[in-house]
């Protein structure tokens, strides 16, 4: 029997506003414990929340980027439960009237475009953090309490772990592009809950779903989905029935565990938060935010593939970061061929960034200079391999490529006579190679070309060398 996975995601993204959602504490990762907190975000008696307007701006921006409708009248509600990291014992969130609704995102999965429905996006606040294993008991850090979040809820439109992964990556890069979230997984800026059910292929009815909490990486999401689908399949194939459950994903153990069954599910007793006013948004407000949205990564990616002839993989990598794609486009704007620029991006630039642990917005070579280097290679002033050496140096110093080529003595030798002299000399000195070539061993050609390149200290035009060696061998 073949089974199909049906997946829905709830993505929580921390918004990168300057201050928290309901008080004026700094919204900053990595500050010393309990330095970004106040009576409001710690839940002291008599305190009141006041909504940070920027949170609404950011959420609307995310909603527009994900093709959502923006609700002109939405409200905030309380979700009630006890936990030490939730000072007020209720989380302010949006229950029945979320700010954004009925959106979608088109993603490109291995050459196929898929539309994933977005049910809703609402705003809410993050909790504090419990710190275990430091003392006998547990300690609390309220720096994160009250940090604004958006929760993006999808329709059950995702059909594979790969689709889920691409969706998550696309959402993250969109949120980064529109500068509402820094999207740093390692800092917990994006987290998700994963809903999975399976059904027989061709079936139109959904199976019973299980929700997995605590999925903190995209690769974890992939493994969690595969694990859960397999678990459900085994239950069904052993004659069992899937119970609607909440399960906790344990990334280290690579498996999930039952948290609670439906009967034991929390009753959060949602009701309106009377301390904050309804959020009323008019067309002018939405319009002013819409104007600030740049070309989004998935749209850009399609343009790179269709208009610039880039491979899907390369286009995906370059557009995954706004700084990287901006760099790419700036080099292209200087007149370089997009495909060649893409090769530099995927090759030398990615390698050197990785080696030097730099990010995409820290590429030390100005676009203009890279374009110049590419032009010099095109003009055969320098060979591709020598060009790479020059680029490595440029990466350290951002010096002019022409100057470096001279200083490093890497100008390509295009002098026909000089190359021919070397070719004649080398062919003559290696009769065995000539013999091998005549006996059909093509390797001999490469060997001879290598010898000549060595002799010229890598400066001889390899194409010319190769052509002339071939010519000489044929004639010999």
């Amino acid at each position, binding site marked *: 029997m073949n089974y199909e996975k049906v997946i829905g995601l709830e993505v929580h993204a921390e918004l990168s506003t300057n201050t928290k959602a309901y008080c004026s504490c700094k919204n900053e990762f990595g500050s010393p414990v309990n330095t970004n907190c106040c009576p409001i975000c710690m839940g002291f*008696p*008599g305190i009141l929340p006041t909504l940070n307007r920027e949170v609404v701006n950011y959420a609307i921006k995310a909603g527009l980027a994900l093709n959502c409708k923006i609700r002109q009248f939405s409200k905030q509600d309380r979700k009630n439960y006890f936990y030490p990291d939730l000072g007020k014992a209720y989380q302010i969130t949006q229950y029945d009237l979320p700010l954004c609704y009925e959106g979608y995102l088109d993603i490109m999965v291995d050459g196929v475009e898929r539309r994933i429905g977005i049910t809703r996006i609402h705003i809410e606040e993050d909790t504090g953090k419990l710190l275990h294993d430091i003392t006998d008991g547990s300690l609390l850090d309220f720096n994160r309490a009250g940090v604004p979040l958006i929760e993006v809820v999808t329709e059950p439109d995702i059909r594979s772990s790969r689709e889920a992964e691409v969706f998550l990556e696309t959402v993250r890069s969109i949120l980064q592009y529109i500068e509402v979230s820094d999207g740093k997984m390692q800092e917990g800026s994006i987290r998700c809950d994963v809903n999975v059910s399976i059904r027989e292929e061709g079936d139109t009815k959904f199976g019973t779903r299980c929700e997995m909490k605590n999925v903190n990486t995209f690769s974890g999401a992939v493994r969690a989905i595969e694990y859960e689908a397999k678990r459900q399949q085994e239950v069904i194939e052993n004659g069992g029935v899937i119970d609607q459950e909440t399960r906790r994903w344990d990334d280290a153990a690579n498996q999930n565990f039952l948290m609670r069954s439906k009967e034991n599910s929390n009753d959060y007793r949602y009701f309106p938060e009377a301390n904050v006013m309804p959020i009323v948004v008019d067309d002018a407000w939405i319009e002013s935010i819409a104007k600030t949205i740049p070309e989004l990564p998935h749209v850009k990616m399609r343009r790179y593939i269709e208009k610039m002839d880039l491979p899907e993989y390369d286009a995906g990598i370059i557009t995954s970061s706004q700084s990287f794609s901006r760099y790419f486009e700036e080099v292209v704007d200087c007149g370089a061929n997009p495909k060649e620029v893409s090769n530099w991006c995927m090759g030398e630039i990615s390698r050197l960034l990785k080696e030097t642990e730099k990010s995409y917005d820290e590429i030390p070579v100005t676009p203009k200079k890279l374009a110049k280097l590419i032009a010099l290679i095109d003009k055969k002033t320098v060979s591709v391999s020598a060009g790479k050496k020059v680029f490595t140096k440029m990466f350290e110093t951002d010096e002019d490529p022409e100057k470096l080529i001279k200083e490093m003595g890497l100008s390509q030798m295009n002098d026909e006579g000089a190359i021919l002299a070397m070719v004649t000399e080398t062919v003559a000195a290696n009769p065995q190679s000539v013999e091998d070539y005549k006996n059909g061993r093509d390797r001999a050609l490469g060997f001879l070309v290598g010898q000549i390149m060595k002799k010229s200290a890598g400066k001889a035009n390899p194409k010319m060398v190769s052509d002339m060696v071939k010519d000489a061998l044929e004639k010999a």
Partner: protein
Amino acid sequence: MTIQELSNKLNNKEISSVEVTKDYLEKIKGKDEKVHAYITVTEEEALAAANAADEKLASGENVSPLCGVPMSVKDNICTKSIKTTCASKILGNFIPPYSATLWNKLEGAGSVILGKVNLDEFAMGVSTETSYFGVTKNPYDLGRVSGGSSGGSAACVAADMAVYSIGTDTGGSVRQPASYCGVVGVKPTYGRVSRYGLVAYASSLDQAGVLAQNVGDAALVLSEMSGLDSYDSTTVDYAVDYMDDLNKGCKDFTIGVPKEYFENIDNDVKDAIYKALKTYESLGAKIEEFSMDTVKYALPAYYIIGCAEASSNLAMFDGVRYGFRSEDITDLDSLYKKSRSEGFGAEVKRRIMLGTYALSAGYYDAYYKKALKVRTLVSKKFDEAFSKYDVIITPVSPSTAFEIGENENDPVKRYMADICTTPINLAGLPAMSVPCGYDSKNLPIGMQILAKPFNEKAMFRAGAAFEAAADFAKIQPEI
């Protein structure tokens, strides 16, 4: 002495704030053992504030009429560095590191705080009997309650242990004790006074108010503590417009009298209010009886909404960050359960249970949602009425102060004490209790004057006009 009288004396240097303050502290020492209005007497802070006020007064700068005037604050309003207990064991030793906005304003005006006064635990009750620190007795009859939840505030003003007091009113908690103790009690429009630092009972209903000796004093204090606050999104930027017109009378007023509010009301109370209405007629106001049948639905709706919000608001008292924590804990679960079980009193627990139930899956629609519909209806009926009437007059409570322990085991009967006051909170209207006579046992009776939202002007004018014209002899409590 009223605020106006005292302020004049202070400004004319007939008396110093330190002298007055010492005098009040002596009165508290002499009387409060019997009345028990105060939870905390802040002698040191009072004298320091009085000294500062005297310096301010001596400097000749333009000072607030409240400067140097000794007063008290209900103990569910946060006062920086002064214990704020909410009359609960769970906050028995809580010292807030911040002040309520209203207290910041009053303190800034030079108010002298004599102490923090008693209330029903977390303002839940009609008698202060649910206070962890014991009941506040009625200065008119020490065997009777002072009303609640702002019983401490009402009693300390009635017994002259403070010139005025700040209370809070969620369903009648300023007006009903004011009525029982024969003082003026004002609950302003929801949004008039910042709730920041007021320990929440029911966020959509809570509003701070004033208990004072007369209408003018109450209006004056309200004008000093109201206004827009960036820490409370529900406050509004409406100007104080009621001080100048205070004594303009109510000759041109049409006063609405909803007949349903007079059902199941003690005869003494009814008679006193009917008599007051005659006084209004003699002042040239027009009296019109009308029907407002929402009153019987308002009380249950109030208790559902109030308890629902309370069940959430009081969840933060979990023994984790501050306040009482049970000694006998083994894990997180027992920390919560035991701290809350031992820290809250019976009435608070009852309301948390009621509220939790009303919000539960499967009951939400039948209770909470229905209550919200009633609330909308109540507001609508008031809107309609205020298209015809300048003010509406009703009783404050069906009876005068009851005996301590009366109906102790019948909470619903207790809740009936709020039947005339809770609809006002549901609609967010301004309302006040004005003394209008005494019953056969010489216990004070209050009349409730309400106006449309942010029309405190009409309410105060009606109150002041009656106060000036009333012909009943004032009885001072013998303490």
